[in-house]
């Protein structure tokens, strides 16, 4: 018993020395280099998106440093892994802010992790521009310091698509539609909203299935959709299921007139090298496409390819979203002439900001407004292009979709 106690006291002492004590934060001195902290998912469930975010952030940091830094401060990015877990993301932002005293922080991947991280960052008084947390529940948090840097709230991602479907002449329009979605705060709200809009317009739902995000075998689900013989297929997926569904459709010789997936087809080569020529005609909602002419985008794409190789079609939208975060912070800092977090928060709530995803602004709880929304992108001849609305379309939408090869 005595031995046990001594050992435990020693252990407690060890644990204490592992941590450091700290004081309140201070604003960086003019001209001094600053660190921007980000928690990225490098291992765990979201680990396939973490690296794409990093690339976007890195490219932005490089660009801003070439121009003399963020308001004269050279920027260093500091990445920490949140192992895709709530516990770690909460720890990471507290470490970054309270222990390492970074000047600014950017957001992590997914609405899931953004929610707990946002409450931490908010109570520590920092601004929280984030590239990937756009579910309705994120804005329900009511945090003034949060900014979702995408052209529209996630829920509305499929609205452009439903608009396009309903714009088709009545005799060509799909009569039936099948839905399948992960029960994920990113995918399900989009599907449910699209379903509401299409049902209201008289397009019949012949199948609607929600499946756990943890599913590994998507074949039975895809079979169900295929057997419905629906004219249109709307899927709430991430990369693995997006691919699995398409493969089953191919093997079952089921070719719907139109098919759209909420994520997957926007991830560049991660998607296209599994399907080859069969990406033809598949649609995805996208705020960004490598061919868009939005602010700074052609330069961004060129620099990305120069630094990381590959082609424009290989790029993932995640990198553009991360780059946009940097852009808005840069512009806000210039506007406010300060990198103080409170001033940035106030500044970001006014006006419009230009990014590679187009213009955007935010309401008081961080929901995007005033942006031009999310468009419909479609794979044609090996690359993904905007096809709707006509104001941004680089090509005509291919409808009905060509058959599988």
């Amino acid at each position, binding site marked *: 018993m005595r031995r046990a106690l001594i050992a435990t006291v020693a252990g407690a002492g060890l644990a204490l020395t592992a941590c450091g004590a700290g004081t309140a934060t201070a604003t960086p001195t003019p001209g001094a280099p600053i660190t921007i902290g980000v928690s990225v998912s490098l291992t765990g469930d979201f680990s396939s998106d973490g690296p794409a975010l990093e690339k976007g952030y890195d490219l932005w940091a490089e660009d801003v440093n070439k121009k003399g830094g963020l308001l004269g401060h050279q920027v260093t990015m500091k990445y920490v892994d949140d192992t895709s877990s709530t516990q770690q993301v909460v720890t990471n932002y507290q470490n970054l802010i309270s222990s390492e005293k970074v000047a600014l922080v950017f957001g992590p991947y997914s609405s899931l992790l953004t929610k707990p991280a946002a409450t931490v960052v908010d109570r520590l008084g920092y601004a929280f521009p984030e590239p990937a947390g756009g579910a309705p529940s994120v804005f329900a948090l009511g945090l003034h310091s949060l900014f979702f840097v995408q052209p529209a709230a996630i829920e509305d991602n499929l609205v452009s698509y439903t608009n396009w479907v309903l714009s088709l002449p009545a005799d060509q329009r799909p009569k039936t539609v099948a839905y399948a979605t992960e029960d994920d705060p990113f995918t399900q709200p989009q599907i449910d909203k699209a379903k509401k809009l299409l049902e209201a317009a008289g397009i019949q739902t012949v199948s609607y299935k929600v499946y*756990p995000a943890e599913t590994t075998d998507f074949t039975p689900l895809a079979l169900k959709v295929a057997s419905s013989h629906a004219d249109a297929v709307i899927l709430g997926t991430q990369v693995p299921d997006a691919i699995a569904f398409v493969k089953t459709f191919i093997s079952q010789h089921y070719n719907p007139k139109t098919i759209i997936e909420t994520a997957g087809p926007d991830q560049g080569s991660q998607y296209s090298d599994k399907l080859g020529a069969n990406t033809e005609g598949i649609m995805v909602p996208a705020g960004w496409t490598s061919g868009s002419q939005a602010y700074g985008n052609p330069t961004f794409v060129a620099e990305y390819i120069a630094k990381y190789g590959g082609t424009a079609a290989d790029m993932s939208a995640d990198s553009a979203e991360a780059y946009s975060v940097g852009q808005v912070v840069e512009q806000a800092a210039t506007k406010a002439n300060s990198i103080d977090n409170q001033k940035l928060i106030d500044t970001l709530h006014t006006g419009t900001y230009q990014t590679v995803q187009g213009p955007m602004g935010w309401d008081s709880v961080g929901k995007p407004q005033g942006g031009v929304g999310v468009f419909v992108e479609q794979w044609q001849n090996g690359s993904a292009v905007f096809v709707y609305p006509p104001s941004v379309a680089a090509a005509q939408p291919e409808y009905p979709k060509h058959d599988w090869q």
Partner: protein
Amino acid sequence: MTLILEAAVLGVLTGGVYALMASGLTLIFGVMRIINVGHGALVILGAYLSFVLWRNMGVDPFVSLIVTMPVMFILGVILQIVFVRPLKTDREALSVLVTYALALGIEGLLGYFFTSNYVQITAWYDTASFPVGDFHITYVYVYGFLLCLAILGAIFLMLYRTTFGAAIRATMLNRTAAQLVGIDVDRVSAVTFGIGMATAAAGGVVFGITNAFNPGSHYDLISRLLTIIVLGGLGSLRGAVIAALVMLVIQDITAVVISPVWAAFVFFVVLVAVLLFRPQGLFGITVRDRV
């Protein structure tokens, strides 16, 4: 109705693959009384090995087994000798921790070399299909099933027709008694672990063709595999095969008929139901002090 039939057929075909993976797991338990919770990670490792051969040298995934199975077998023997054999006390509990640590280590290494991007092995037979009645069956499932039959058949043959197989069965029945009659239980254990790894490699190939995977994919696999071997009866090869087929058919039918949401749940419900009446599983043996 066609849909149910189709789901049932799919269940049988994928059940074969799970049977293969589960057979290694249950053999390992039977011989060494350890629960290898790292089995899922080993399947993924096998998938990556085949993936590398396929991507860099264009080797057809099924053909790559000629290389990956022996490699995994040897790796299995080494892992058993280094990490499992030293466990003398509290075997079952510690073995879970050790194999879990191995799984994490494998996941980490795979993540380091391949990053966490999803990959998938593609081949002409993963979308090509032949029609059966009203629906289509993709070739890859048939090939995978045939592979499983072949390997399982080989294992059964070995177990019941060779001396070494008899040694394995003896060790499974009573380790001490086997030692007393002169069987080198350490060697039996090492080889069995190797066989388990080799079957994981085979399962990995089919898994790698039909699913997009990354280093983190092993968690979902292992929960199903563990359920299957308990349902079948820990240590019973026959039980693992039948349990795998039954479970996958029930799961796939539930997915299309009721909802995919409850299909995974049904897996565990069946387990609970069976264990209520037969705590030793379908084919498990009730030994005095162990279940």
